């Protein structure tokens, strides 16, 4: 295992070292100590390595992640796992706004609460939140799954396309064109898998499913160019 003191060695050295790992590296586990809320920790990784951040992070932790597993033992600032392509990001604490924004793939697990705009414009990422999500979550979500074991704030799924939203608790309000949908057996199966991957002991039957009513302008074929 490699231990990297971020305070002593600096961010650029950390990200360079992590970027230098090939897919066949033997240095598969990295502990990052003294993160102290720093920005852009473990951004742009592209190797099957495990990075354990021992504390809370600032903006954009684990952005653009590919293959790697990034585990934050604290809370994450705005834009964690933004535009993730693959791999896994786990936040032990809370996540600030726009967690998992525009993510194309991979899994983001938030064990605390996520604040506003969680999963905004998600494009295939799976996000599992053990707690609550704030307002405007899954805004313009295009693909992927958002699982919320707690409650969702205002305007959930506003202008949503094809992503699936599963919420166990209350939804303060649904955004434009977002509706509750029937939970069919195939959805329960997808949800069971997501809950297992996210380490949640919740039962799929306790959730409601939300998605697009497909009534906005762009869903009308007569408006196509």
């Amino acid at each position, binding site marked *: 295992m490699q231990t990297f003191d971020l305070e002593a060695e600096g961010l650029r050295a950390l990200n360079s070292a992590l970027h230098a790992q090939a897919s066949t590296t033997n240095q598969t586990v990295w502990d990052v100590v003294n993160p*102290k*809320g*720093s*920005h852009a920790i473990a951004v742009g990784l592209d190797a099957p390595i495990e990075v354990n951040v021992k504390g*809370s992070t*600032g*903006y954009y932790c684990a952005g653009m992640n590919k293959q790697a597993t990034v585990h934050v033992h604290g*809370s994450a*600032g*705005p834009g964690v796992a933004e535009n993730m392509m693959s791999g896994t990001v786990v936040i032990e*604490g*809370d996540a*600030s*706004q726009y967690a998992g924004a525009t993510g194309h793939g991979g899994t983001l697990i938030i064990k605390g609460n996520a*604040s*506003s705009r969680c999963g905004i414009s998600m494009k295939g990422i799976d996000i599992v939140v053990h707690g609550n999500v*704030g*307002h405007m979550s899954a805004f313009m979500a295009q693909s992927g799954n958002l699982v919320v074991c707690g409650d969702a704030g205002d305007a959930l799924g506003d202008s949503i396309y094809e992503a699936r939203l599963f919420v166990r608790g209350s939804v303060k309000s649904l955004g434009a064109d977002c509706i509750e949908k029937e939970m069919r057996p195939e959805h329960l199966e997808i949800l069971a898998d997501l809950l297992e991957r996210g380490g949640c002991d919740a039962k799929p039957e306790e959730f409601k499913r939300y998605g697009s009513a497909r009534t906005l302008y762009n869903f009308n074929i007569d408006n196509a160019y």
Partner: protein
Amino acid sequence: MCGIVGLFLKDKSLEPELGTMLTDMLITMTDRGPDSAGIAIYSEDSEANGKLTIQSDAADEAFSGLSEKLATAIGSPVTLRRKDTHAVLEMPAEKVSEARAALREIDSSIRVMSTGDILEIYKEVGLPKDVAARFEVAQMGGSHGIGHTRMATESAVTTMGAHPFNTGADQCLVHNGSLSNHNSLRRKLRREGVHIETENDSEVAAAYLTWKMQNGATLGEALESSLDDLDGFFTFVVGTKDGFGVVRDPIACKPAVMAETDQYVAFGSEYRALVNLPGIEDARVWEPEPATVYFWNH
């Protein structure tokens, strides 16, 4: 962008350290606002006197003999404690408004930064570390304080465009964000007779709160109504004589992190600003909800 820090002490034994802790927090937020910096500090170090914090770009000349002139004008003793371009004038509390009027007669180039019993506001253009050093913020004690680092978007980089803004006796405001209806609101407030010095959007927010409170609203009510009347992005932190408050606009784009322990309540635009506070590892850390007014009082 802009950065905000705030610290409200519950544990009196930390009070001598307030300035040191706030300075550290302020400098951490330099990346968010390198243009200017300011600090509002609440300290009951004097014997319940009235305080006027003043500023002059020609401080040597302006502050020379000022306390004597002012004492003659208001018929009470006045002390002057100079810090760089600023000075704190202390006098009996009931003489403060009279002294403020007299100052305009004595030297119209002197600007009033703050009035109150215990509040002092220091702000200047420059890097936060330089501003903090010029005013020796680290040496100041107190019960609570608010700091601001500015990245100007809506008006010029000047001393008077820096934060905090004094909104009333012992009250101040700092702002991260930008208001889009500040021009129309400024015209409206000026018609109501409110004095607004600059073209700065945050000064309009401060003047708005002052005006609301002059018309009978409490600070809490004024902050609530700001959610309806101010258009734009904002995270506000307001200081009062015995505490501080926080409010974010309903969209809540502008960041805010709070931490609370048995010893203090702290505010930072980013968690980074809080990492050196004592016991932060075990503090309750959370983000204030949008469109919700928070207050902590002694």
